[in-house]
């Protein structure tokens, strides 16, 4: 008798597992990890804004931004293979929209080595490149900065205290409740082998079990916090002042991003090198 295979882990489960790995990576000391979290958050936001500002017809112009990612990955000692696996898991919505563009816009945009490229192909390539750049920049931030440091950085940049508290607690208990969900799913799989994803009524009862355990845990957490003098306000340590190297990092990256935005380096290089 063959043993029925357990259902494949859901996309949410895989993302959550990878998130735990990213936090472990962020705890490792490195030159990039030592930078102030606010500086890294600002640079990441600037990177994403510049990458997103390229129009749909600028497929190659954002490519020089890869230089920042390459340098940062090297300084942060972040394995590229880990990032590639995570990018592959991301929502395909942007890619579906890009594919629709590819299909709907077939007017020729140009030829290269005898191959005619449509406007849709250029737009799709532009979307894909910007998507990968932005996703990699965010993964870099997560892999070199602990989540609590990122929240502290946003708090220093004006995030409301209630939201900062909410983020820290949610992050803290996400992995705990994910284990709880894993136990519930394993129990279901052992009792209903080979049935795949449960039907809605059954899944509803499983979710309710998880919810009841979550509510009970919330009550225990509140009791524990009250015993430690919690009065509704989570104590968040003050942010240390920025150092000269952090400011230099922000300024240097800002200038580089501005230069990439202002000058279409790949096109200029291509013209200079072509006969």
């Amino acid at each position, binding site marked *: 008798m063959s043993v029925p295979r357990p259902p494949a882990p859901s996309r949410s489960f895989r993302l959550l597992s990878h998130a735990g790995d990213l936090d472990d990576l962020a705890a490792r000391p490195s030159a990039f990890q030592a930078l102030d979290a606010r500086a890294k958050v600002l640079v990441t936001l600037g990177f994403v804004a510049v990458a*997103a500002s390229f129009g749909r017809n600028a497929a190659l112009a954002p490519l020089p931004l890869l230089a920042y990612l390459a340098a940062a990955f090297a300084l942060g000692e972040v394995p590229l293979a880990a990032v590639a696996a995570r990018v592959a898991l991301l929502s395909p919505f942007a890619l579906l*929209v890009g594919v629709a563009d590819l299909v709907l816009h077939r007017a020729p945009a140009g030829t290269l080595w005898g191959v005619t490229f449509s406007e849709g192909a250029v737009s799709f390539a532009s979307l894909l490149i910007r*998507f990968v750049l932005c996703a990699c920049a965010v993964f870099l931030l997560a892999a070199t900065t602990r989540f609590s440091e990122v929240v502290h950085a946003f708090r220093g940049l004006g995030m409301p205290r209630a939201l900062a508290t909410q983020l820290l607690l949610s992050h803290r208990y996400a992995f705990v*409740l994910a284990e709880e969900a894993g136990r519930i799913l394993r129990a279901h799989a052992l009792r209903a082998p080979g049935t795949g994803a449960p039907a809605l009524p059954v899944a509803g009862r499983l*979710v309710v079990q998880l919810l009841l355990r979550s509510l009970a845990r*919330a009550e225990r957490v509140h009791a524990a916090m009250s015993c430690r003098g*919690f009065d509704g306000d989570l104590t968040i340590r003050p942010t240390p002042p920025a150092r000269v190297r952090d400011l230099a990092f922000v300024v240097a990256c800002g200038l580089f991003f501005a230069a990439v935005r202002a000058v279409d380096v790949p096109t200029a290089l291509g013209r200079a090198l072509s006969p």
Partner: protein
Amino acid sequence: MHMSDALISPGVGAAAWAAMAGGVGWASRRLTRGNDPRRVPLMGVMGAFVFAAQMVNFSIPGTGSSGHLGGGLLLAILLGPDAALLVMTSVLVVQALLFADGGLLALGCNVVNLGMMTSWLAYPLVFRPLAGDRPGPLRLGLASVAAALVGLQLGSLGVVLETTLSRQVSLPLPSFLGLMQSIHLAIGLVEGLATAAVVQALWKARPDLADATFEPARTSLLRAALVVAAAAALFAGGLSQLASQSPDGLEWALEHSIGTAEPQAPAHAAHALAASAQAATAKLPDYGGGSPLAGLLGAGVTLVFALLVGLGIRALRRRTPDGAPAP
């Protein structure tokens, strides 16, 4: 429905961030004023619960695929609209930062589409009026499905508008709209049924939670008005740029029957009086040539007029001592 940074222009992203900052700041202040220490760990754990609950996939009959609970409507039912918005925002921030699921620049758009539309519009304006106090299973199911449908339709409409205004892709608006709205109709139906199933089972296990869930709703007129005003400004100021230049149905019929879309008015005193009154009051004749300013002004005047009508009716109802409607 998570939008990525590649679909958003910096301008649209910044505007959505501003809307997110304003909305989240307001919700945070209201929750802080409530000063209930139990709420803090409960909201934190509920945010973690949403992550964990999304791991539980259920099969969707007839499609061969599976789905999972989104959680926005469930949070609003269990925690109230302000707390739900804060929890959904934390979920989206964690998803953006740790999973890159939904971009950083697009975070504001995702909070507006997935958080505000459900917590501040669908829940108070659809779910609460339909569910009433302590609904039975059928009423709860209908209210959940209706609220989930409305919330997700508004959210997907937000996605379409933000993507179109950003001009990062050149999808035809009608096709994009048709595809997104129809897909999210199905998703909304499933989300509503799943939410109703969870809430119903929860109340059976914990009847005390049912009492806590249905505290009298404190619907904020100002909050609802601000959301509607922001939506009206987006439509009038932004979407008007995409308006069709083709004649409308009446103009088309007139052109094909009498050869002109604007027939001459007969020489009569009443017509002349009406025309002179219109010339005196029309500050933007022909909608100012279709400018966004005309759209915004028109939306603003309409909104003020509608508010005055609502406030007037409220004032009339309050005049009678026993609360009965005025004759």
